């Protein structure tokens, strides 16, 4: 069986999630409140019912008492009459008759004398008055051969106890067929001996009536048990065995536990409480029975057939009986459950209303968020003027709106600025390109430069790096002398290119009338060092080759020495002077060399030696020497060198201008 994991539902919308949590919290609180309320109301209802029942029992009690007391008083009042009539025994009939006539409650009365008190009357003399079916009062003599009254409880017990005695209820066999109890009072003569017992019989039928009426009223008014009418209720009482579970009922038990009244009439005087109590497995009801007989009062809960009942009991003191009312617990709590049900329903309705209100409000409040998201999307697409949702409130949403608007404005401003900057950059780049073009056009471009001459060959190449650079080379022939130079301005960019342009013009200018290399360089230096606040200098090699003699006069202002490729590969020697532009008063020296025929001069700038591969290694002089080959033409030499550098550098970016100038002195010009 796969395990079950409980996970909270995920919501796609903020308002749904908030609504869920609010509702969940409110529901939990509601449930707790409902539970507390129902508990309190149950307790209250239980107490209320108990008090109601007890006051009812109190009323019944008092009613019973008043009847019984009335009888006692009536009997007491008759005693003087009896004593007055002692001399005339037949008058006793009238006495007892009058007692009945005056007291409707008394249904029978006798003055039963001790045996042979009146010798003429015999052993049994007991004038007895009773009521006929139509309530007329009749009299007769009670004692007979079948009815030895001296041995009856109503006679014997008071006689032995020598005090007034209420008998246990019984069904009358001699008189009417009713349930009765008899009050017996012994009569004492002057010497304190009992000579007779006077009795009064009281019907207890009204007792059952009383209790039944009270039950009916209780069921209908307090417990709200709905029955069509009294007759139906009584029929139910008579025959329905499930009666007990749907109604409250009262019964009275006597001193020994015998039922005196009970809804099931069969039980009356025939069965005791304990018969039923012993049937049940628990002992609570036994305990209740003993309490009742002891004359105690109280309320207990019992369980019969799985159903809970409450028993309220209280004594009827005068007689030693006890009354109990049994109420099914369900009936008591019906009222509180109805009450609770109403409360819960109201709360549920409240919850539903809350749900809709909550959802509506939250939806309305969070709607701007979705709109903001949409605006943001639009702005991201490029429409900086996208409209923002209108916010009327002055809360966090308004804050968000204002921040958004500010961001929008700021973005638009930045975009504008960016446009300007880009435009400016474009212009600058355009100008830079134009500058580069001008620079490149200053260099000799057309090769072979002197196709009509076969005594020399020249080839020069400048591969510029990304930025405009400061490398230069130049040459021209004047008076059968080849003036040539190669140089490298310190630095890069526009400044370097300006200096380069200046240097080249100066070279052309000065070398146009001055042939001594050291002088040319000196003049160039003077011109450049002036106003050279930025201390930009140019490493410069200038040579003047006499084409007839092969004599090379040169001056090296801090530049790399040229290679001589002829009989092997050697370096032109010399003592370098300072670069041009360092000190205006610097002295420059003339150096001389006799160039043999068929020699190739290879000149370069440090862009060649310092070309770096991906690991930062430099091309270096050694590799140059490796590539230089006697016999290669100028063009070939430079082409090979170029390829070697490219191979060496690989994918790394070219950081500096790569400038090479090769001059092949083939033979002396005739």
């Amino acid at each position, binding site marked *: 069986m796969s395990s079950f994991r409980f996970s909270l539902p995920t919501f796609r919308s903020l308002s749904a999630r908030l609504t869920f949590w609010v509702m969940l919290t409110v529901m939990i609180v509601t449930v707790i409140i409902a539970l507390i309320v129902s508990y309190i109301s149950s307790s209250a209802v239980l107490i209320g019912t108990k008090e109601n029942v007890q006051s009812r029992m109190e009323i019944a009690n008092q009613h019973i008492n008043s009847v019984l007391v009335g009888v006692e008083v009536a009997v007491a009042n008759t005693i003087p009459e009896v004593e007055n009539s002692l001399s005339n025994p037949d008058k006793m009939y009238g006495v007892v008759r009058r007692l009945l006539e005056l007291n409707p409650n008394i249904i029978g009365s006798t003055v039963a004398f001790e045996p042979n008190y009146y010798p003429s009357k015999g052993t049994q003399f007991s004038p007895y008055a009773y009521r006929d079916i139509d309530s007329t009062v009749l009299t007769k003599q009670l004692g007979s051969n079948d009815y030895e009254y001296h041995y009856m409880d109503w006679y014997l017990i008071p006689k032995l106890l020598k005090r007034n005695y209420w008998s246990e209820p019984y069904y009358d066999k001699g008189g009417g067929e009713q349930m009765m109890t008899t009050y017996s009072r012994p009569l004492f003569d002057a010497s304190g001996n009992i000579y007779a017992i006077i009795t009064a019989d009281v019907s207890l039928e009204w007792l059952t009536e009383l209790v039944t009426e009270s039950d009916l009223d209780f069921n209908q008014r307090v417990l709200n048990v709905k029955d069509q009418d009294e007759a139906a209720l009584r029929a139910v009482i008579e025959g329905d065995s499930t009666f007990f579970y749907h109604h409250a009922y009262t019964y009275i038990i006597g001193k020994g536990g015998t039922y005196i009244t009970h809804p099931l009439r069969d039980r009356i005087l025939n069965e005791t409480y304990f018969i039923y109590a012993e049937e049940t497995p628990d002992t609570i009801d036994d305990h209740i029975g003993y309490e009742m007989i002891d004359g105690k009062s109280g309320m207990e809960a019992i369980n019969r057939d799985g159903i809970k009942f409450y028993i309220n009991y209280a004594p009827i003191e005068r007689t030693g009986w006890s009354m109990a009312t049994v109420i099914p617990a369900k009936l008591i709590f019906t009222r509180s459950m109805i009450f609770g049900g109403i409360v819960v329903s109201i709360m549920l309705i409240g919850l539903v209303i809350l749900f809709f209100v909550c959802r509506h409000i939250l939806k309305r409040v969070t709607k701007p968020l979705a709109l903001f998201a949409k605006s943001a999307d639009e702005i991201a697409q490029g429409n900086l003027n996208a409209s923002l949702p209108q916010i009327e409130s002055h809360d966090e949403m308004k804050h968000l709106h204002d921040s958004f608007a500010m961001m929008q404005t700021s973005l638009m401003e930045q975009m504008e600025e960016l446009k300007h900057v880009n435009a400016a950059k474009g212009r600058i780049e355009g100008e830079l390109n134009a500058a580069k073009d001008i620079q490149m056009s200053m260099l000799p471009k057309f090769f072979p430069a002197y196709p009509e001459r076969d005594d020399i060959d020249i080839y020069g190449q400048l591969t510029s790096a990304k930025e405009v650079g400061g490398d230069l080379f130049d040459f021209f022939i004047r008076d059968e002398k080849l003036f040539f130079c190669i140089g490298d301005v310190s630095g890069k960019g526009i400044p370097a290119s300006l200096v380069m342009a200046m240097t080249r013009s100066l070279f052309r200018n000065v070398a146009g009338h001055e042939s001594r290399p050291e002088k040319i360089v000196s003049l160039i230096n003077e011109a450049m060092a002036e106003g050279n606040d930025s*201390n930009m200098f140019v490493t410069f090699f200038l040579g003047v080759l006499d084409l007839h003699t092969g004599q090379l006069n040169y001056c090296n202002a801090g530049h790399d020495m040229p290679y001589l490729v002829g009989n092997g590969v050697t370096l032109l020697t010399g003592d370098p002077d*300072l670069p041009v532009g360092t000190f205006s008063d610097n002295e420059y020296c003339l150096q001389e060399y006799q160039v043999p025929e068929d020699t190739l001069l290879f000149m370069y700038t*440090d862009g060649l030696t310092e070309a770096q591969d991906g690991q930062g290694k430099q091309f270096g002089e050694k590799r140059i020497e490796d590539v230089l080959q006697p016999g290669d033409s100028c063009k070939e030499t430079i082409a090979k060198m170029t390829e070697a550098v490219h191979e060496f550098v690989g994918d790394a970016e070219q950081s500096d201008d790569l400038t090479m100038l090769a001059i092949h002195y083939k033979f002396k010009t005739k």
Partner: protein
Amino acid sequence: MKTTIEQLEDCTLVTLEGELNTAASAEVNTILAPLIENGSGRIVIECKDLTYIASSGLRILLSILKSVKTNGGKVTLRNVNDNVKKIFSLTGFVKIFDFE
């Protein structure tokens, strides 16, 4: 490329470490600006960890030298390695600086 200036009791000590190529020269120029503007007194440049110097680097040193010459003082390059010394030789700068 790392550049530091220290004002010691008897001199200003500049320490150059790494490759002073064209790319690094802009930063070095900024750091050594006070010496370029107004260099004076005894300035010692420690070059034992300086592996390479390009022409833009030479330019910076030249500026410092010129400034010192105007205000009075001396520039000494200390512990220059062979590679860098060669560059100084080729460009003739070896003649204008003092080495130790």
